[in-house]
């Protein structure tokens, strides 16, 4: 089987799928082969992966609804707060 050869520009379009693990094996192998030879692409892939993981990290920050926002919401909707929330 002949290997797929990728240029930097081709690789760019496949990056999201590659990092999300949704790319077929041959194409993933082609990306890895390209990265082994192209320093710039390797940095782009590594820092892009890190970018996504930093935002995943950020998304785990707890975000509590401020009590006054919740009160105003229930007031606007003319609802009574369920007992377990009081």
């Amino acid at each position, binding site marked *: 089987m002949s290997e797929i050869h990728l240029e930097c520009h081709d690789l*760019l379009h496949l990056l999201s799928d590659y990092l999300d693990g949704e790319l077929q094996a041959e194409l993933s192998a082609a990306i890895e082969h390209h990265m082994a030879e192209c320093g710039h692409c390797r*940095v*782009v892939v590594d*820092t892009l992966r890190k970018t996504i993981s930093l935002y995943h990290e950020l998304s785990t920050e707890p975000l509590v*609804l401020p009590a006054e926002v919740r009160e105003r919401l229930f007031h606007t909707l003319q609802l009574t707060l369920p007992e377990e929330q009081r």
Partner: protein
Amino acid sequence: MVEATASEFSLEALRAGDRQEFARLVAAYSAPLYRLALRMLGNPQDAEDVLQNTFLKALQHLNEFEGRASLSTWLYRIAANEALMLLRRQRPETSVSDLLQEDEEDDVEMPAQFVDWCCLPEEELLSDEARRYLKEAVQRLPPKLRLVFVLRDIEGLSIQETSQTLHLSEAAVKTRLLRARLHLREQLSAFYAERLRGQRKQP
């Protein structure tokens, strides 16, 4: 997305106008929807407006909810639409159809930053300053990229759920997601390259 709780609500009771059931729904979804709105708009007052309007709309349209999508996807969709409307009011030059149109130019910008900052220590990557910068960087994304990025990479929706929420094709979601991610990578590279230089200067 708080998918697990969706099945805990009785659609029948909600449709019949059961106020207690609706109150339970509001209590369960107000925090994630507020967070979504805050991340999409970056401003607590706007996020609160979106939150209130989302539930007012939901209440108004419960009868039209067919149950094809999950209740949470439906609520997310309303919230995303409300956020879009608000963006349009604030920036009249961007129309909602512009934000949701399938006009995908397939072009992605070629990367320009090639500094490898992955080796920075975790406390530097996620310092208070870095966290602030990460959030600001999302706000600097063009709105149509920001919507997709927030839903997919911050709220953790799948490509399919994001496409359902925004009424966009999966292909369009993927293109926008890639462009958003690359955009953010450029911004983060500039920020962390600075930190890397600072570190090297230290004895």
